[in-house]
């Protein structure tokens, strides 16, 4: 029996110490292979292509002067025609819609392209308010993107997040995602707009259901959100920031539950002193304007949405003068 006692205690101690040693070694080694384009997951390859193109566009615009940046997930990528907005408003505009699955990363990344005097519109997808992203909140798209392409983002993460990312690497199902298909190679305009989403996808429209919006009640924890920190950073760096509703497939009427959610979002922006432009309903679109997911507009939808932006931007410019 004594042998088993020794065996059990020894095994238990090793079970606790070995993972710690492995974690320390992995944390050290990971700085040299995470985000260095060594392991590339399918979807993140696409995101990287967008990102590179949009950053290049941003660099060129910044050389010329202040710009408008429309920042969010892919609802902006498909929903906004920055070329048209620029033409109509006379202010250089960049579509910085990426992928809502990147979660808090879009705020980190936006800091790289925003300059003093710029204006940023944030038509964030509702998941940004549902999940209230904090630094340790890591959606899988973000994990995959970080592993593939952003070493500096990885390095600044807290240890807990780094460990989560490393744990993701050894998941068998994550290996499957490495070789995932890039279904479409979307074409982007020089201002970062998706320009080939012509008509509603039939497969999608057969099963499409309007989005149901549900946001948690606002608590004091909002100061930990990356969105809050981003807003503060914008203010400190003389960057104007406006909140606006995202474009989404939605029925016209709003349920009580949804109204509560909208009130919570507005409450947040009031607390942090950010102007919310327009109404949530302004972002609601009928199925005929949707491309292939609830947040992606087709070309007709994009046109309507861009006109809306033009009106709102012109109005804000007039007010500021």
């Amino acid at each position, binding site marked *: *029996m*004594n*042998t*088993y*006692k*020794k*065996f*059990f205690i*020894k*095994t*238990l101690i*090793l*079970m606790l110490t*070995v*993972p710690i040693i*492995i974690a320390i070694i992995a944390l050290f080694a990971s700085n040299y292979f995470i985000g260095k*384009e*060594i*392991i*590339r997951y*399918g979807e993140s390859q696409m995101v990287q292509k967008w990102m590179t193109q949009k950053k290049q566009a941003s660099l060129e615009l910044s050389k010329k002067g202040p710009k408008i940046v429309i920042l969010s997930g892919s609802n902006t990528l498909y929903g906004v025609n920055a070329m048209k907005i620029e033409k109509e408003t006379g202010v250089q505009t960049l579509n910085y819609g990426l992928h809502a699955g990147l979660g808090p990363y879009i705020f980190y990344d936006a800091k790289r392209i925003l300059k003093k005097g710029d204006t940023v519109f944030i038509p964030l997808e509702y998941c940004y308010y549902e999940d209230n992203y904090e630094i340790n909140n*890591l*959606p*899988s798209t973000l*994990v995959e993107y970080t592993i593939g392409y952003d070493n500096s983002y990885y390095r600044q993460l807290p240890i807990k997040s780094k*460990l*989560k*990312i*490393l*744990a*993701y690497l*050894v*998941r*068998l*199902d*994550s*290996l*499957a995602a*490495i*070789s*995932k*298909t*890039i279904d479409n190679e979307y074409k982007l305009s020089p201002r970062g707009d998706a320009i080939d989403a012509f008509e509603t996808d039939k*497969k999608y429209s057969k*099963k499409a259901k309007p989005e149901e919006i549900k946001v948690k009640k606002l608590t004091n924890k909002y100061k930990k959100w990356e969105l809050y920190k981003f807003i503060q950073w914008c203010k400190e760096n003389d960057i104007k920031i406006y909140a606006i509703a995202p474009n989404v497939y939605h029925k016209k009427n709003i349920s009580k539950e949804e109204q509560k959610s909208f009130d919570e979002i507005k409450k947040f922006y009031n607390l942090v002193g950010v102007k919310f432009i327009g109404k949530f309903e302004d972002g609601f679109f009928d199925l005929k304007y949707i491309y292939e997911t609830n947040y992606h507009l087709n070309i007709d939808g994009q046109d309507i949405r861009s006109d809306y932006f033009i009106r709102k931007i012109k109005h804000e410019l007039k007010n500021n003068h």
Partner: protein
Amino acid sequence: MLFNSWEYILLYVPIVLSVYFLLNKKHLITASTVWLVCASLFFYGYLNPTYLLPLILISICFNFAVGSGLNNLTFNSKISKRALLTFGIVCNLALLGYFKYMDFFITNINGLLHCDLSLLHVILPLGISFFTFTQSAYLVDSYQGKTKEYDFLNYALFVSFFPHLVAGPIIHHAEMMPQFERLKNKFINWKNLSEGLFLFLIGLFKKVIIADSLAKWANMGFDSTSPLSCLEALSSLLSYTFQIYYDFSGYTDMALGISKMFNIDLPQNFNNPYKAIDIQDFWRRWHMTLSRFLRDYLYFPLGGSRKGNVRTYVNILIVFFICGLWHGASWMFIIWGTLHGLASAINRLWQRTNIELPRWLSWIITFSFVNFAWIFFRAKDLAVAKNMIKSLLGLNGFAVPKIYGVTIKYLPHISNIADWDTISLFLPPLLILVIFIGFFHKIPSNLKPTLCYSILMITLFILSMFKVLSPEYTSSFIYFNF
């Protein structure tokens, strides 16, 4: 609380185990039992205490009272004792019926009578099918005088003991109560502790690494909106076949392992079921405690095979119909159960011919049938099942998934790799692993306190915990739904 959550593995089990043995070491035997009951109730009510705790507490108290009544009270006539048993069983079934089958019943009434009765949307309480069956068996045995007078605390522990509470194995009072009462079992046993931990880690590995990985491919096929090719459907179906086995047997190993650490032996639930060479053999190897319950408390009382051939076949069909229904309130489960019933009846008929098939052929027929039947178990409706069968028959083509390497910078870059191609990459080695691990359940009893076993245990722990702690990992057990 889930067996595969870090809270359970790193906090709950160590705390419950330490306090339990500490109290016993100080000879606070009753306090240790109270502690274990409370810890089990905490485990059960972790997610929704106000909903779940009253339910299980009422069920325990009610069944204990009825069981004691059946044991102790001297009834003047046999009929009144029978009435008490009937009352007890009806109440248990009513509880199960309300929580599990009410909405299913209303949906069917609406469909049949073209009316519009509103659904109750009752949330299925965890483990209700398991603790209802366990306690119904206790009532039947009390009626038959097979139980003795149990202590309430031990009875409450028997029902609520957390390792088996939410997904079995379905335990029997006769094998469990003596273990709870035995004083020797109250003290730490290092051999059991080691073997229990080993078994738990094997179960964790089976669930987290094998079952959860296979789930991705099973879901990809069964939830697919586009038609699958024959090989895609076959890969998906095989993935589900092994997913459900490793999910449930992984859970059972974890339950058995943790229980063993408390010096309590739970009954085995699996014995390499996919090695079965006929359908009766399959049911002697798959969810063995459910088969035992259905045999002892349904098949035998119905007359078993003692009332002639026709009645035997009818009894088999009834048992499997109930077996299907027990798994869930859906026609798909009923179809699955009935298919197994028909197969058992055919198997019985075949046995009467005295023709013996080669062993390998029997295995192929049995395994193919079991796979086929899982389609109905997994598909959410008949349309999905029909599509899957169509795909398996090759009516949607036979496209072979391409085998490609992993897209890593230093390997040749290959773009446009479909998700299904990854199946061809990972499924064969995974299935080999899966078959190999099928023999694992024999190892814990052979555990040697050597460095090799230590290393094996640490490896299982690290691999599983890596996955448990990775982002967005949430995975419940399939049998939690039943």
